[in-house]
């Protein structure tokens, strides 16, 4: 089996049939992580424990008793999920060296099914950002920066310039997870999605990024950013694999009161899909300012694809879309201010040496532990929560949020099944260009297409669609009805099959996979 293979259809079978062992898979992934270190996708690599888990998995396969499809499968987890005995930093000085005493529910579920945890991936500090550039461990590099496809298209500015500076961002805030999946160092990764943090990097790195319905997957153990919008995100190389991960993670958690009580039934996606009975909505407000003409063209092309397959494609309106950035800003910063209050240096994490008084210790700890972005959001959030501002800002924003959510309800009620939109405004920007603007400006720009789904709690998925003129991935987004992940993923799978997104061609991966099975030439399967 090759590292680039699809989980369900190939790797799983290979493991069961003994054509490859969990330890082999694990070792190859670990080796690849080492040779792709320059991507800076991982903060912590848990080599020892991963190999141990792989060995245990191997024993189970030998006995013919694997725990399930995920048994022995190497995965990575974003570093804002708690992992017992393993450092969890949120890419912040505040939690550098912090060893979690427990596993997040989603991590526990993966481990219970025999998955092999390779390590914790890099992110924007405390998941605040859209580039994975603002963490204390440095930025994540998009693997496509080093792909044959990008290098062929990129015009060297000058020969004397350092080739290294051409690299493009991975998107964020789950950039590390997206890069890890994209560069084949793991078969799936967990991200988080508050305003698009799973879908954005998925689009830039050319992988599938699923944001499930709020309340479907437990947030217990996910260090919170915005409790009312956060969800664990799933990053994989194909839609089928996303369905596998969803099946193993979804369901009520007594430790998370915001998960729904209803039983969740894992599903398999059909292979033959007929979209002719579907109604696809194209929200006109998502033709946002700054949307690149390339992406606009792809979007329209995609709409035509559905039309030609017999689906009903209609233009719809989500009129309150233009208020969503401001609304999100108020609600997000308010919750952030609240959630970050626990980092005072007293119980865990960084503690400043300033000892004059409790207050001064708190202040110094928080100044030293948090970066500008985090501090800025805390200050804004506290401002909005002040008694004299609460009604004007917070309550008002809640009302606007309701309006935004209602926009979707109305559209879905009118007969539309799925919405089709772009995921990002353009392909991945070069790092040097991206950092010209500050985090807040970037986030405001980049979140526009993704955060409405978080406000409304709806499921959404990025499907890699095509390469841009610069040879970088562009993805399109599907937004579905609450808890209708099966329908959403089915449509996404059909679309994935249609577009046949090319596989990344990375030198490093070629070297590692040489001499072993190579069924596939493309990332999608037949």
């Amino acid at each position, binding site marked *: 089996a090759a590292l680039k293979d699809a989980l369900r259809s190939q790797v799983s079978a290979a493991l069961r049939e003994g054509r490859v062992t969990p330890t082999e898979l694990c070792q190859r992934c670990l080796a690849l992580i080492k040779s792709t270190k320059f991507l800076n996708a991982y903060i912590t690599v848990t080599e020892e424990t991963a190999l141990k888990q792989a060995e245990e998995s191997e024993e189970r396969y030998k006995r013919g008793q694997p725990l399930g499809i995920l048994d022995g499968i190497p995965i990575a987890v974003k570093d804002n999920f708690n992992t017992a005995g393993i450092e969890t930093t949120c890419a912040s000085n505040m939690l550098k060296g912090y060893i979690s005493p427990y596993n997040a529910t989603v991590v526990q579920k993966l481990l219970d099914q025999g998955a092999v945890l390779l390590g914790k991936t890099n992110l924007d500090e405390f998941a605040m950002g859209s580039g994975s550039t603002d963490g204390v461990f440095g930025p994540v590099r998009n693997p496509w920066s080093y792909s044959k496809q990008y290098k062929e298209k990129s015009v060297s500015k000058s020969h004397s310039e350092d080739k290294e500076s051409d690299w493009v961002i991975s998107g964020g805030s789950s950039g590390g997870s997206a890069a890890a999946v994209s560069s084949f160092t793991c078969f799936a990764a967990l991200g988080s999605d508050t305003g698009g943090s799973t879908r954005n990097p998925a689009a830039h790195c050319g992988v599938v990024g699923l944001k499930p319905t709020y309340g479907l997957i437990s947030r217990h153990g996910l260090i919170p950013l915005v409790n009312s919008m956060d969800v664990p995100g799933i990053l994989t190389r194909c839609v089928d694999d996303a369905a596998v991960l969803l099946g193993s993670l979804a369901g009520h958690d007594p430790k998370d009161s915001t998960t729904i009580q209803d039983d969740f039934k894992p599903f398999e996606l059909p292979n033959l899909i007929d979209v002719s009975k579907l109604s696809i909505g194209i929200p006109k407000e998502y033709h946002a300012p700054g949307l690149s003409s390339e992406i606009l063209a792809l979007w329209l092309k995609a709409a035509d694809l559905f039309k030609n397959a017999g689906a009903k494609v209609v233009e719809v309106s989500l009129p309150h879309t233009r208020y969503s950035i401001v609304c999100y800003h108020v609600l997000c910063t308010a919750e952030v201010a609240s959630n970050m209050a626990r980092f005072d240096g007293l119980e865990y994490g960084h503690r400043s040496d300033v000892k004059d008084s409790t207050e001064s210790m*708190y202040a110094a700890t928080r100044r030293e532990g948090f970066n500008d972005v985090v501090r800025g959001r805390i200050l804004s959030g506290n401002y909005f929560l002040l008694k004299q501002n609460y009604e004007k800002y917070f309550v008002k924003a809640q009302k606007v949020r309701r309006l935004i959510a209602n926009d979707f309800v109305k559209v879905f009620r009118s007969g539309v099944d799925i919405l089709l939109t772009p995921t990002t405004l353009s392909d991945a920007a070069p790092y040097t260009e991206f950092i010209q603007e500050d985090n807040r400006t970037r986030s405001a720009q980049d979140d526009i297409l993704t955060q409405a789904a978080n406000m409304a709690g709806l499921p959404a998925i990025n499907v890699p669609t095509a390469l841009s003129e610069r040879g970088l991935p562009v993805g399109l987004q599907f937004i579905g009805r609450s808890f209708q992940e099966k329908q959403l993923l089915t449509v996404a799978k059909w679309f994935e099959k249609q577009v046949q997104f090319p596989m990344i061609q990375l030198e490093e991966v070629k070297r590692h996979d040489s001499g072993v099975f190579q069924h596939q030439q493309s990332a999608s399967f037949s």
Partner: protein
Amino acid sequence: VLNRRCVEAAVMTGLALNCHINKKSLFDRKHYFYADMPAGYQITQQRVPIAVNGSLSYSLCIDNKMNQMVTKTVRIKQIQLEQDSGKSLHDDTRSQTLVDLNRAGVGLMELVMEPDMCCGEEAAAAVRELQLILQTLGSSQAVMAEGQLRVDANVSVHHPGEPYGVRTEVKNINSIRFLAKAVDYEIQRQIQEIGNGGTILNETRAFDSKLGCTVPMRDKEGKQDYRFMPEPNLPPLILYDAKSLPANMNHQQVINIDWIHERLPDLPSVIREKLVEQYGILPEHSFTLLNEDGLAEFFESVVKQTQMKPKKVIGWILNDLLSYLKQHSLTVKESPVTSFLLADLLNLLEKKEISSTAAKRVLAELWKGEGKTPLEAVKEHKLELLQDQKELEQICQAVIDGQENEVIMMVLR
């Protein structure tokens, strides 16, 4: 995650205090930084608490005369569920504070009363009754010394007819006795302050039990903006009653107010009434019985095992037993004299086998806890009453003969 038992306790307490139970209540975050608040906020119910608009009835003795009791009522503004903070232990000598986080996050019930009480005695009586109610319901052991019941007193003074004055909050009150003292001290202090032309600050003061006065607390600032925000991790708390309970709802998942109401035990006031009615004792007796943990049960147990009338038994319980327990700082449970032994003794008295004086002496013997039965003690000290008429006449004659000039009339029973 919400603790079900806390919600049940709050509903029970709300019902016992005649409150309206809000079928939908909400949770909020109250933000402030303090060493004993690890999350930087406390989860509470600021917007919509679980119960509102109740009342608590309590009794007072007028002029300390037990036989003149008056019933008073204090309105209950609301009951809310919230989280406890940790415990701060200030070490002034080393300029440090030790923080114990063991109880942080544990569920609390905060009961807010309206300012319907006028002095320390009333406050103490009201809290005492509340304590009994909580213990009866099982909501809390409500022992103040152990921090299971914490009381903050809000005190203000005003001239009759004028609006209420500025109030101060008095904290650090560790017993009901201190509550009365703290309230009375604060009232006097405020009256004096105003009399001297000063003004009362809306501040928090601590009660110093050694000095018997209140002092301003340095730690808590005057007005803080707590930046209340809805608690996003706890959905609104929905309670049901028999009417609103959906048919297919899992019984484990919901709380039915009516179901809890049906299972409420008798409240102290009801228990007292029943004691008075059933045993013919005085109302003030019933108060004392309930005031001492286990005493009412002890009394009833003795009554069951003896032929002596309850009206007479009560004297032995309240005068003899209770005073002995108080003298030796014992609880009813620790009493060396069990209800069985006392009943046995009272039976001897009823059957006229001993005099009441003798009975008191036997009781004194039994307190020693040497395992003797009343009969054994009587025999040991030759306390039996002589029943034989002839023997008695002989003794009397001997006495009279010996004392021809002074005949002391002894009443022999």
